[in-house]
């Protein structure tokens, strides 16, 4: 469905010395520097997949998304969706896609929400009968009925986001780009939006590309993750691959009546863990230990711990994706 090959984007950046004198200097003698925002990124996304696209701030995520949505022209490389290329045929290309930028709206600010859909219907040339069906469907999934006659500027953030997602789906795009669709929303609204995205993906086999800082979005919605940093591909694979590759982190949780359990245990000294490979949190009688199971196997950890102190209750679980990614970001930066 989506093919991205060797995508690259360079920006020119004016370098300015601080202060008034610097400003004046830049006015007469601007000094430019080339910044490579995206450097040779490639990936494919098959039809119907929900792909999580992640990376730390400034990694070049937005730049990639903007190239994929036809907003920015790549310096080199290309991307195609359904065989169409935005550089050659932008108009037909954008018919295939729907875009939601969480921080911006494409709704007509001063008019009742319904009017936006009326105009978008014309822009995307949706026939009347299809439009009616589509609105009924979107209304069912995103529950627009209660505010469709209100002016957009009066909508709450959650309502606005639902309305924006509906707007991006009106022309039944094959691919949906969601850039931070849950930003600033409360837990319940986040859940609603995730459910809606999942439902649309299942019902219509819409391919979804999702960027977000809330990793729960990714964990709940997508199987596949592409991660970039400093403009380069860092990881491309399923969540379970991510876990098996980087996720040797396990979490050991137990209750103990031994005082100063962490000191008694002294994992670091005993096993020779280095910095990132272990962390311990104590809360009352509960202790949580995160450790790298490649350095020390789980069984060894367990038997050592059980032998050293009094344990009432113990459990082991896989670290969540958030922990893995936190470690990945740290290592890369």
């Amino acid at each position, binding site marked *: 469905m989506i093919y991205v090959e060797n995508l690259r984007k360079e920006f020119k950046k004016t370098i300015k010395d601080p202060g*008034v004198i610097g*400003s*004046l200097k830049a*006015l007469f003698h601007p000094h430019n520097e080339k910044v490579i925002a995206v450097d040779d990124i490639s990936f494919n996304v098959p039809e119907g997949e929900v792909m999580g696209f992640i990376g730390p701030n400034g990694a070049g995520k937005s730049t990639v998304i903007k190239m994929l949505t036809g907003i920015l022209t790549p310096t080199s490389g290309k991307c195609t969706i359904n065989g169409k290329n935005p550089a050659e045929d932008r108009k037909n290309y954008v018919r295939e896609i729907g875009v939601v930028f969480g921080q911006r709206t494409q709704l007509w600010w001063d008019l009742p929400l319904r009017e936006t859909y009326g105009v978008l219907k014309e822009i995307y040339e949706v026939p009347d009968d299809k439009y009616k069906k589509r609105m009924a469907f979107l209304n069912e999934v995103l529950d627009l009925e209660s505010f469709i006659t209100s002016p957009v500027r009066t909508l709450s953030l959650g309502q606005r986001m639902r309305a924006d997602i509906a707007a991006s789906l009106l022309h039944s795009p094959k691919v949906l780009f969601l850039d931070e669709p849950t930003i600033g929303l409360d837990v319940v609204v986040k859940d609603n939006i995730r459910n809606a995205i999942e439902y649309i993906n299942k019902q219509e086999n819409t391919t979804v590309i999702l960027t977000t800082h809330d990793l729960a979005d990714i964990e709940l919605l997508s199987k596949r993750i592409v991660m970039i940093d400093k403009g380069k591909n860092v990881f491309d694979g399923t969540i379970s691959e991510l876990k098996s590759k980087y996720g040797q982190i396990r979490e050991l949780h137990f209750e103990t009546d031994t005082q100063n359990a962490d000191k008694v245990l002294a994992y670091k000294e005993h096993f020779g863990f280095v910095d990132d490979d272990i962390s311990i949190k104590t809360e009352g009688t509960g202790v949580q230990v995160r450790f790298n199971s490649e350095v020390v196997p789980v069984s060894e950890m367990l038997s050592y711990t059980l032998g050293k102190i009094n344990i009432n209750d113990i459990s082991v679980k896989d670290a969540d994706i958030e922990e893995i990614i936190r470690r990945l970001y740290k290592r890369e930066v």
Partner: protein
Amino acid sequence: MKRKLRIYFPFINAGLQEATTYRANWFFMILGNVLGCFVSYFIWNAVFLSGGNDTMNGFTMPQMVVYIFLMFLTSTLISSGGTYDIGEEIRDGSISMRMIKPISYNSTFLFQELGNKIMTVCILIIPLVLGVEICRTIFTGEIQFNIIGFLLYIISCVFAYLINFFFNICFGFIAFVIKYLWGANMMKNCIVGFLSGTMIPFTFLPDFLEKLFLFLPFASLNYTPVMIYMGMYSGTELLFYMGLQLFWVLVFWGLSKLLWRVATKHLCVQGG
């Protein structure tokens, strides 16, 4: 006093920074306005050619040229953006945030604009005054520049700026009534432009209008400083018009305080 100044110093700096950041944009605006001056120049040139007399209503053509460019310099020096700033705050309700801050709104804004003005003064005043003086010297054959006149002009500009500043703040309160500030501001600019003599010297108007306009606050904005620079006022006349300027400064300062009080009460009642 010293402590007070220290509080406001960052605002001057911020204004200066802002001005240098958008300098290219600012420069084009100034260039556009200079072009406007040239349109006026050519019209007046044609008028003097058609009139046949060297002097019209007390102005010779060289004096007219000086008048046009001084008007432009003065309007740029005394311009103030208070209407938008306060109007926008009224519209989006953030004016209520002002009430909980321990420094005066008017002052922060005034100092920020002062920072902005520093750049205007540095860049504009020297070439324009130089140009005007060279012009006057060539036309009359002798140097006309008068340091006392120039200093009085600067003082008069400071008064004019203060009048404009407080007047614009007062006008900004119109946002409680008219939501479309851009339109309202445009109306205001048209009226002020004419009544302050920017388009045409008052001596060209019928007698009673000239007298009336001289007493309105708008004459104190552009007309008085320019007339002082050109040496049209002297002695008691000079004192009178500068006194009038001071009077209008106090009036609009008082009015802005009053409106502020009314507005904050209004906000409390509304619970905004």
